[in-house]
């Protein structure tokens, strides 16, 4: 059989690409970062083992759901898990280790501008640029390892946000142990200040923004001239650096200084929102536009397929709405059991893959499209063979009609 380079499996690439030079460079830096950061973090456990363990528990409690949320932002074409984990590891290990090693830049600021200026403005001058470059390189590495997987602005955001989250997780543990004393009480204090009060505005946003720029730069080759793509990417990167610099700068600080009383704790999130909210709104707007664009991509790709072997008109309406998809899956689970719901989820995923194949083949009658249509049909047939599944699907359709009015 002739290998099909347009099959969904061929179109989805993993992190493990030994033929790509970028993969080996990635591996070297992440391995170095693992040694460097594990050594540094274990050393901090000497301050307080209970505080250290609590730090990790708290960051995992907040990072895990955030990881899932970021990953699920991409409505139709979820990124390969290995690449998503790869982006997170770059941020957590490689970017943090390289940031630690680049501390000499602070010396330069102190020498050039004087110790007093460095003390006041140093955190706003060096860290934003260095850290945003290092975390942004994670998205570049993911792109160089698996170019086809960064094919939209949303993909760039997902990989960027995961890089930023990895960086934030390690940085938070450093802060809890060093700046907040490392004792369990200090760690809880740090968690309140850095995560509860300001967790929405940090590295996830900054690197997400940089990632969107990289996504735009590499995925709009056929529509947008190079100069404009470079301008947009550079603009988004500078916005991330500026947002980070404003966050670190001694400006707009209305919050009380520690120790925080009850009233201070209530004021703190408001103060931090003044600095962080504008950038958060920019990113929310950007993500909304990117999702709308993805929806248009799905509509365009499947326009000629609706009513055919691969996807029915009813299935398409459910597929393009995350809310209806969730409802259909829940209904299938209730009426026909978990295996049936799993099969329906797989059918929906393969229908998205059908859109992906259609959008990448040179002609609509490419054998890869026919094969994918057939695969979707066979999944639908398998689903229909499960007792209760057909009625669940029919009910979902009726329910959808009533929702649509």
């Amino acid at each position, binding site marked *: 059989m002739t290998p099909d380079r347009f099959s969904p499996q*061929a179109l989805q690439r993993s992190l493990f690409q030994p033929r790509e030079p970028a993969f080996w460079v990635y591996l070297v830096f992440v391995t170095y970062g693992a040694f460097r950061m594990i050594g540094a973090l274990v050393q901090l456990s000497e301050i307080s083992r209970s505080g250290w363990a609590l730090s990790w528990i708290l960051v995992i409690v907040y990072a895990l759901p955030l990881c899932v949320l970021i990953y699920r932002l991409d409505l139709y074409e979820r990124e390969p898990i290995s690449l998503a984990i790869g982006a997170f590891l770059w941020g957590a290990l490689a970017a943090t280790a390289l940031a630690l090693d680049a501390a000499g830049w602070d010396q330069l600021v102190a020498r050039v501008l004087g110790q007093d200026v460095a003390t006041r403005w140093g955190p706003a001058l060096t860290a934003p640029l260095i850290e945003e470059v290092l975390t942004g390189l994670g998205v570049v590495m993911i792109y160089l390892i698996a170019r086809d997987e960064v094919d939209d602005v949303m993909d760039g955001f997902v990989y960027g946000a995961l890089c930023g989250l990895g960086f934030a997780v390690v940085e938070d543990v450093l802060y809890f142990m060093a700046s907040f004393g490392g004792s369990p009480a200090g760690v809880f204090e740090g968690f309140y200040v850095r995560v509860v009060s300001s967790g929405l505005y940090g590295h996830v946003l900054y690197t997400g923004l940089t990632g969107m720029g990289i996504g735009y730069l590499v995925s709009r080759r056929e529509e947008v001239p190079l100069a404009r793509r470079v301008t947009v990417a550079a603009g988004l990167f500078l916005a991330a650096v500026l947002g980070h610099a404003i966050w670190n700068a001694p400006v707009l600080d209305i919050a009380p200084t520690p120790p925080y009383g009850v009233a201070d704790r209530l004021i703190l999130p408001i103060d931090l929102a003044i600095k962080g909210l504008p950038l958060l709104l920019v990113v929310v707007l950007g993500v909304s536009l990117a999702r709308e664009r993805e929806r248009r991509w799905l509509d365009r790709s499947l326009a000629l397929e609706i009513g055919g072997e691969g996807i029915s008109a009813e299935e398409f309406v459910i597929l393009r709405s995350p809310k209806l998809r969730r409802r259909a899956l829940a209904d299938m689970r209730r009426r026909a059991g978990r295996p049936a719901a799993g099969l329906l989820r797989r059918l929906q995923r393969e229908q998205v893959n059908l859109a992906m194949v259609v959008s990448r083949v040179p002609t609509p009658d490419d054998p890869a499209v026919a094969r994918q249509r057939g695969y979707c049909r066979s999944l639908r047939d398998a689903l229909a063979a499960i007792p209760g599944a057909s009625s669940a699907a029919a009910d979902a359709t009726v329910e959808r009609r009533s929702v649509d009015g």
Partner: protein
Amino acid sequence: MSELPAAPPSPPATPRREWRWLPVLAVLAVIALIEGGGTLAGASATPAGQPLLVGGAVRIGPPSGWTAAEPPGAPQELVLTRGTVTLRVIAVPGPIGLDELATKYLAEVLHPRFDAVTIGQPSVGSLASGVPTLRFGYVGVADGVLIEGVATFAAAPTEGAVFDASAPKGDLAWAAPDLESTIRGAEVG
């Protein structure tokens, strides 16, 4: 449930035509610029691993990137800096208890240095050599700038030592691994 249909076959990855090394080299150049620039910027620092003696009683070996200076008129003191982070090491002659040392330092150094200072919960520990330590974090405001610090006190049978690490808000965390290894590896007495 009947057996699920098999997915369409997955072919081997296709070779790429473009020259794949060029962007990778660009990435390496950016990393080299950041890391090399950082190294050059901190070039005046004390060589790594070179042991430094403070007041004839405290021996420390700071990692690379730190600059050591003895404040004028204070032979018992050494100030290590890296950018905005400062580690003040003070040798305290004679036998002295941890609580006494901490109380004295708080009253004579920290309170006068800041307009306002808040002390965290103290915790006990030890240096790698087994000398007992007491440490607490603090946050102070000096000239409108929020300074974070961690003061560690060590009491050997014949000598005492103070290790006071401080930096503007946010900078201390990234120096924490270096500070921790320097303080923990210090020899007192």
